[in-house]
């Protein structure tokens, strides 16, 4: 499994700088142009979510794509690692990158908050900033939720990539997300019209539990990936 994680990180290395830079710029731009309200710190929460979702997901997607196109997935299978280790290593990388990004995001967004707090003393038009315990909590929560979303996305992507390789899987992943949105919308309408309560309200009350669903989907997809990759012809 160690070999697989090292292989993934080595594949990621050339993409790391550009991915971090792009999404960091997007996040900073969002923070810079939004007048903040210290009651909700919306821009910081959105920025944290962007970083924790986009960086790890893009990296995981890219390495699956690179290994497929370069033929590395085939050559890697001739190394002394089992198929089980390959799958578990890929999941370990996804978890590692997601949680490392979460920690990095919390640090970066907190630093940004402090900088903006300092600047708001000079430029009052920037809005209200006060890094209280609550504000820090909101940054942590948003980062954690973003990480859970990433794990959910990886939970959908990885089994498909394991079965078909990324070139083919890209189509199925798009299809899976379109179906998820369409069926999800239909389900919400159905529940609202037949059972007479607002699902969105119900989901709001479950909001502290829902992020963990991402982790559950991620964990549940591991045996599926193991099964699908075991029989894949490389």
């Amino acid at each position, binding site marked *: 499994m160690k*070999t697989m994680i090292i292989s993934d990180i*080595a*594949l990621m290395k050339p993409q790391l700088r550009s991915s971090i830079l792009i999404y960091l710029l997007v996040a900073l731009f969002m923070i810079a142009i939004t007048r903040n309200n210290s009651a909700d710190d919306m821009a910081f929460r959105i920025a944290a979510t962007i970083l924790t979702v986009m960086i790890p997901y893009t990296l995981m997607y890219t390495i699956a794509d*690179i*290994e497929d196109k370069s033929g590395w997935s085939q050559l890697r299978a001739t*190394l*002394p*690692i089992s198929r089980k280790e390959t799958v578990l290593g890929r999941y370990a990388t996804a978890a590692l990158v997601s949680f490392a990004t979460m920690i990095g995001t919390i640090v970066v967004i907190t630093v940004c908050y402090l900088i903006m707090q300092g600047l708001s003393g000079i430029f009052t038009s920037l809005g209200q900033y006060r890094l209280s315990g609550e504000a820090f909590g909101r940054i942590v929560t948003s980062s954690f939720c973003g990480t859970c979303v990433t794990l959910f996305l990886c939970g959908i992507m990885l089994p498909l990539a394991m079965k078909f390789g990324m070139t083919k899987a890209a189509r199925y992943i798009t299809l899976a997300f379109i179906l998820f949105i369409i069926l999800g919308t239909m389900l919400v309408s159905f529940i609202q019209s037949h059972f007479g309560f607002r699902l969105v309200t119900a989901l709001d009350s479950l909001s502290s539990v829902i992020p963990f669903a991402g982790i559950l989907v991620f964990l549940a997809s591991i045996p599926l990936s193991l099964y699908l990759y075991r029989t894949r012809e490389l």
Partner: protein
Amino acid sequence: MTSLIKGTGLVKRYEGFCLDHVDLEVPSGYVVGYIGSNGSGKTTTLKGLLGLVSFDEGSVEAFDKPAGEDGLWRQNVGVVFDACQLPKEMEITDLKILGKAAYHSWDDNAYTAYLKSFGIPSDKTVETLSRGMGMKLSLAFALAHTPQLLILDEPTAGLDPIARQEVLDILRDYMTDESRGILISSHITSDLEAIADTIICLDEGKVVFNIPKDDICLKAGIARCHKDEFEAVVQNTASIQAGSTQSGLCYIRHAYSVDVLVPDRFAFTRAFPEVTVDAASIDAYMLHMLKGESL
């Protein structure tokens, strides 16, 4: 003599193709050349031996033990495919980290030495290398853990003659240790004439012949017969074939002559001194065996 890898009764069925009970073995000290036309099943066999595809029937033993799914036996195997399949954007020096993580016996110094001797710059990415350099890099990666067995799928395809010669020299050096072996598939039979000890030919998923290379290059011949000479050869088929494992004499008709593949060109010359006999090449041998008619 240890068996480095041995496939017995290997069967793989695809729609429109069947690898049909193929047996092959690479003993230590041997270079086994695996030849055949496109789509004959060579790559499928190699992939199956390595566990990249699963056989429907048959068994694979590596180093005299069943080749387990854990892949640990591959600690002792180096693999090169027909193109450089190392990640394109990876720096050449980073491959060391990968090799070290994958192989217990990975030798950083050997890897660096190979890079140096192949003239590969270590500070570049894989994608900046030419095809020839890419193949040499693949070989350096495959050799740096000093494997006992090399499995090569057309490693010289698309290389210029100089690069091909360099690759062959590397393989010759590798084989100076007799505990090692190579299984190499190639369309470039002149490469196999230079390094192989045994030739296995596959056609439409079946082994057509599996013989020592010297039986082809040093012993067999192509008799250039006129039609009347061919009639005489036909009359003596049994004596020409005596002591040969080849089933039936294979021949190819031309407008004014018939080329006959004879298993022993020296014996044939003694029997038919008036007939010209050329030494057989692997190409000619394969062509007669696959496309010739049989007596």
